[in-house]
């Protein structure tokens, strides 16, 4: 391998927030393992209100199949293969999303990757999602356990941005989530705590702002946080819905730490000399991809997957928080208003935002400039979350703009039956070496 020597070394140090983040994550999983003793209802799937629903109905604990399957595939190579085989033996095709094949296969085998039986679900809920496999999983899960099911419609469309239509879709989603609350009240026999929910919604907004402030610091050279470490943090308050108060405190800690690191030039990657943007994370069991890129002094500073985190473009091309991002939600008092405000986050998506390749390419170009990226890596996903809805168009646009871009094909949700890790690393070598960069060796 041709090599180069690092020209500059930034100071770096471990994240102080790391252990606290691990603790919060552990709390979330403990709730699942003690569900029987605490008479908690295990809800298979996910809803659109996320942590808010769990605060309003603390008797419910949602287990989304995606992170569970990701964890399963990360923990073992052979077990997810067994799960997929069991699932396909029931007649489902190999083109099914790896998340669902792993999750449903584990259910059909009645074995948990953590040992013991697959924990029974009490209710199945499928919230607003683009993925048809996710929707189908709700049906299969509810039939398998013979449990009540609530199913939301998928709220999106492809086409020109259409605010009127987006508002109508948001209202439809609001109505379905108000219906979901009543459905869960009936299914569990417990009342939804409106006051706690409204408070948690406001706290969620504040947490969201803190997250955006962290993303803002990634525009700094050197980046104070790399994307791989960021993934462990960014699920906190989202898919990992631990105690909201502690989650907010943790995000304050992360924000303060990142600002301090940015001000003091403390780098996530000591040899940072190349910054790239990622379209999507690799399969979760292959996060060492980011470590591999670090051998070239390359750091991932931004991923489409996480969106812009609520940041807005400034006249100078940088991204900053809008003014008063929290205050406008402080007057919200009722369940319906909070649900509407929470779900309004989908409006841009529904207005043709996400599935609009042209708009996305423009946004990507601005984002690359603001985050001072040298190149882009765009994954072509085969089924599963974030399937290819715009990456080809974005790739061609990047080529037109002279921005180095690499595509690689994978199944993000894969069960390790459909991903060639060595081939991918080979492609990373090609991407970096074709730009004249070599692995760094002291």
């Amino acid at each position: 391998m041709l090599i180069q020597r690092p020209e500059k070394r930034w100071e770096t140090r471990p994240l102080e927030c790391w252990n606290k983040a691990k603790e919060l994550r552990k709390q979330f999983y403990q709730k699942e393992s003690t569900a029987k003793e605490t008479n908690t209802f295990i809800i298979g799937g996910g809803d659109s209100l996320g942590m808010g629903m769990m605060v309003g109905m603390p008797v419910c604990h949602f287990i989304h199949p995606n992170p569970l399957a990701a964890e399963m595939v990360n923990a073992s190579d052979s077990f997810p293969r067994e799960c997929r085989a069991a699932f396909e033996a029931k007649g489902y095709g190999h083109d099914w999303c790896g998340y669902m094949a792993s999750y449903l296969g584990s259910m059909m085998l009645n074995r948990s990757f953590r040992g013991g039986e697959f924990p029974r679900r009490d209710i199945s809920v499928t919230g607003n999602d683009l993925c048809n496999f996710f929707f189908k999983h709700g049906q299969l899960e509810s039939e398998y356990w013979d449990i009540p099911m609530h199913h939301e419609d998928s709220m999106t469309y492809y086409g020109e941005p259409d605010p009127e239509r987006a508002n109508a879709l948001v209202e439809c989603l609001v109505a379905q989530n108000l219906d979901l609350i009543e459905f869960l009240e009936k299914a569990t026999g417990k009342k939804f705590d409106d006051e706690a929910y409204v408070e948690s919604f406001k706290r969620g907004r504040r947490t969201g702002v803190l997250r955006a402030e962290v993303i803002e610091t990634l525009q700094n050279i050197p980046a104070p946080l790399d994307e791989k470490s960021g993934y462990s943090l960014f699920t906190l308050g989202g898919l990992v819905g631990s105690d909201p108060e502690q989650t907010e405190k943790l995000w304050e800690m992360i924000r303060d730490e990142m600002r301090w690191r940015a001000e003091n030039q403390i780098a996530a990657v000591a040899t940072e000399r190349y910054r790239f943007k990622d379209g999507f994370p690799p399969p979760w069991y292959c996060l060492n991809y980011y470590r591999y890129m670090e051998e070239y002094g390359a750091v991932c500073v931004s991923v489409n997957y996480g969106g812009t985190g609520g940041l807005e473009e400034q006249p100078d091309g940088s991204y900053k928080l809008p003014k008063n991002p929290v205050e406008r939600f402080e007057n919200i008092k009722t369940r319906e208003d909070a649900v509407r405000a929470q779900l309004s986050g989908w409006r841009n998506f529904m207005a043709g935002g996400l599935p609009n390749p042209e708009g996305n390419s423009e946004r990507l170009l601005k984002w690359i400039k603001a985050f001072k990226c040298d190149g882009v890596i765009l994954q072509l996903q085969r089924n599963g979350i974030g399937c290819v809805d715009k990456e080809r168009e974005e790739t061609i646009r990047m080529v037109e703009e002279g921005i180095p871009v690499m595509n690689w094909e994978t199944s993000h949700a894969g069960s390790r039956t459909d991903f060639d890790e060595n081939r991918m690393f080979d492609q990373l070598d090609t991407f970096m070496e074709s730009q004249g960069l070599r692995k760094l060796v002291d």
Partner: protein
Amino acid sequence: MITAGIDVGVKTVKIVILKNNEIIAGGMAPSEGFERGKATEKLWNNVLKQAGLSESGVDTIIATGTGKTDVGFANNNVVEVVADVQGVLRLFPSARTLIDTGAEQIRVVKFDEMGRVINYVLNQQCGAGLGAFAESMARALGVTLEEMSRLMLSSKSDTTINAECGVYASLDVVTLIHNNTAKADIARAILDAIANKINSTVNLTNIDKPVVLIGGVAHNEGIVDALRRRMGIDFLIPQEPEMAGALGAALIGISEVSQ
């Protein structure tokens, strides 16, 4: 100065030795699957003999290709895209794009006059349109690759098969055989599908002319003809199109030693 370039592909190993920038020896042999390390060593000894050299007489050895890390005696390795560009520029200094179609990968690379890569695209995991696929389809028809190419030229049919996925393409061929489609028409459909796949990979980026075809598939007249019809380009094809990567690696060796 004496340098060597070794290109270890999925199907074949190619070696070029340069002395003072001129080719003095070269050769190609099957890479023998799991035994490609041994196959490479055997060919290396043959080429050294041909050049009248011992290994210690070679200043540097640069490996490239899928099996580049299998060459234990190489001093260094380089990715195929970079080696290909150097090799092609040496053969055709005016070239600005290369299409390398080997046993399992298509590489389309646009570059400048200095050999800097401007952009490139690789086909992804699906193996359709590649040399290995062409060989397996020829076996399914019970002919050699060369015979399949000749057969194709006698067909006037516009039968098509799936061009994007090797598995689906194979299923399509089985269907055509079951439907008693003429062998020549199936051959044409297969080679057209391969050309379509190469063309669709090219369409994922922008290219400049002149365009050079390298890799083993460039030997196949049927595919080149189909590709020419689709893309409307008169390609430049070296006499030994599969040797460009090894040549490029040997040229990179010169700049490595000079540094």
